């Protein structure tokens, strides 16, 4: 199939940036979206042009490194799909496709489609963990965890930290990301001792990083490649209120 892509090109953070149009001919419908960009880049290199920079690594939908706006939608048109797992069979011959980086002030553009998501790591640093130094843990069977709790914790833990939620949110909020981590750890008995401080510290860190506030738009959950539900944000808000009351 033949398509046309209009790609955001920005050589570095100080560059203003612009959309540039490229024709991609004879691409297999079985190719992934990133493989289509690979093919385009091979051509750009041989033509003496600067290839398009984009983040990617595992190409199995799990590392969370890839991500771009495709026709204005984070990770593109398929629900619950990362960009690396989006295949060209979902597009039509002759389509014109817009490709842009995540747009959020907390995720500055590094080059072309590459953005800096270091703010997510700093939110985790503020409290997204259980303090459990190595080598002294009790036997794993010492604390039974009811299966429904374990399953719910797992569902929340599937967040891959790709940042699509932030990119899709009109406010540039990272609430879904933070809520997933708070729920994952808060649903387990091991996570209880730090439950209050965790939610308060993570929310503070989130504000400091310049993410916007959550107004329950729900765009985040719509584009989330792992289907993290909006209800977790409600859970986070509850945890936060309880924690603040105890202060």
């Amino acid at each position, binding site marked *: 199939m033949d398509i046309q892509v209009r790609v955001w090109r920005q050589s570095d953070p100080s560059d203003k940036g612009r959309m540039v149009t490229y024709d991609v001919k004879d691409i297999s419908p079985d190719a992934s979206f990133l493989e289509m960009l690979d093919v385009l880049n091979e051509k750009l290199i041989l033509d003496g042009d600067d290839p398009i920079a984009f983040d990617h*690594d*595992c190409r199995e939908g799990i590392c969370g490194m890839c991500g771009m706006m495709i026709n204005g939608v984070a990770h593109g048109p398929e629900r619950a799909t990362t960009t690396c797992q989006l295949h060209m069979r979902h597009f039509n011959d002759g389509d014109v496709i817009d490709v842009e980086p995540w747009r959020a002030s907390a995720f500055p553009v590094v080059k072309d489609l590459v953005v800096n998501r270091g703010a997510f790591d700093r939110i985790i640093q503020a409290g997204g963990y259980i303090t459990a130094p*190595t080598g002294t843990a009790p036997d794993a*069977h010492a604390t*039974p965890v009811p299966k429904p709790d374990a399953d719910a914790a797992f569902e929340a833990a599937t967040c*891959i930290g790709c940042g699509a939620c932030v990119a899709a949110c009109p406010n540039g909020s990272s609430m879904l990301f933070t809520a997933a981590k708070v729920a994952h750890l808060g649903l387990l008995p091991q996570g209880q001792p730090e439950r209050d401080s965790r939610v308060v510290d993570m929310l503070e860190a989130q504000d400091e990083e310049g993410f916007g506030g959550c107004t329950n738009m729900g765009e985040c959950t719509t584009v989330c490649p792992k289907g993290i539900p909006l209800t977790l944000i409600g859970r986070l808000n509850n945890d936060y209120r309880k924690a603040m009351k105890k202060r």
Partner: protein
Amino acid sequence: MTESFWKDGDPIADTAAPDGPIETRWDRRKFSAKLVNPANRRKLSVIVVGTGLAGGSAAATLAEAGYKVRSYCYQDSPRRAHSIAAQGGINAAKNYRNDGDSIHRLFYDTVKGGDFRARESNVYRLAQVSVNIIDQCVAQGVPFAREYGGLLDNRSFGGTQVSRTFYARGQTGQQLLLGAYQAMERQIGLGNIEMFARHEMLELVIVDGKARGIVVRDMVTGEITTDLADAVVLASGGYGNVFFLSTNAKGCNVTASWRAHRKGALFANPCYTQIHPTCIPESGSHQSKLTLMSESLRNDGRVWVPKRREDCGKPAGDIAEGDRDYYLERIYPSFGNLVPRDIASRAAKNVCDEGRGVGPGGLGVYLDFADAISRLGRDAVEAKYGNLFEMYQRITGEDPYEVPMRIYPAVHYTMGGLWVDYDLQSTIPGLFVVGEANFSDHGANRLGASALMQGLADGYFVLPHTLANYLASGPYEKISPDHEEVVAARTQVEERIQKLLSINGDRTVDSFHRELGHIMWEYCGMERTEEGLTKAIGLIRGLREEFWTRVKVPGTGEQLNQNLEKAGRVADFLELGELMCIDALHRAESAGGHFRAESQTPDGEALRHDDEFSYVAAWEYGETPTLHKEKLDFEYVHPSTRSYK
């Protein structure tokens, strides 16, 4: 004539391993290790390269202990290391199923599964600490699968007959890595770890014979800097991407290990590549990587191909039960579909070579869940494997609940790596190597669910003790960034980058990488011959020469330049590929994933030659590589023919 490809060197030995009863070796080693006073630890610094299960857990644990850690990864966040993609599970000798499991049995299975090419002492220690790994991860909040009673669930995996694998749906790697990453981020927050994401190690700094630092490139600004410390830990993963198409993440590379090898660290068993039997078959020439389907699928999926070649083009549903060949169950009745990876991979290749493969190009076999769905119900199958089925459908456009999956073997994991002793120290003092980057625990074949175990064992439980023993002799003399060795290492990096950028030829980096991959898969893949390997060495030498005259790397070094990054890595793969072929050539036996066509039993099974090849092949870098042999002794698990029939 093949002799001219290498030279024989002196034998080597692992002098760090205690002797005596195997059950007490690790405890005795820990007790004999020197300690560092807590107040002195903050004066000691360690560089950790790589943030996967091995590097992340090592950095977190060393920082908890009070050492100053500086950690590097090429990704944008330490959480993205490729350990994250491991699906199936992690083994531990907990015997929670009361099915006769024990540390000794896990040890036995692993030594046997590795085709008697691993060290007994290391493997025993691995089995021992496996028990603590699960405790540690549960304490961190890793959401392992649970039974209704609230206790941990288990499943079985290829190559074993007990259920000792702990899992978190099909995302065990991600969950374990998040545990290590969160422990690491906590230490970053506390100021005990300084983290450098989007930085790549391009050279090792050795001063007075000791590893004292690394040269790194900031992948965003292009700045080349040197970092100096008391010790260096490489946790940089495997090198399966030498094949271009593999299940590895695109960025996985050998550069950190290879640079250390060129500086004197021995590289052990480079030809030991694991070919994983359950990958989604290749779909076309655009393909950039292969995707693994968890081996756990073989617990319930049945593998088959049509009995007759003429049926191969028909839809699976049109082939009558009596016309199907469930070849694993037929040839290996006691293990059936759960035979180890090397056996399952070769069996798939054999039926496809007979012309009975299915799907495009005849390179595929069916993995069929029809029986499981009728026995357990669709919901139960979905609960167990739902995300894997979804992933398969996404990639292939086929619904595995309706039609059988198609799978084919692909390059997955590398058992070879930098040579280390029992302390995980390489042949360069102060350079420690953990996880997939070292060679030590898996022998010629790795059993399922043991890579995660080894990564975490090394990082959480082994290295922190053995590295402390080394650091106890420090702090080592302070090195100035102007020291001639440091300047020389940095200059080497700068010159290499300038060279890559200046060639300005007419071929892309990827085109060289693909061509190298074809050579490696054809001649150094699942089946190897003396003739093919000799030919491959010549081809690789020619390709390498062409690379350095015709490669085109656009842009400059002072910016984010993904092609420059790739070019450096492919340049190293072009050197490693040759060593892999030389190693495969010299080992005239079949062992694990390494099948030498000249060495097989009358019924086509792999034939080892324990009398000649019961050793680790450790290579010293040079114009002509030098082979040092480390003899392997088996006191507890006596080498026998591996039979899964």
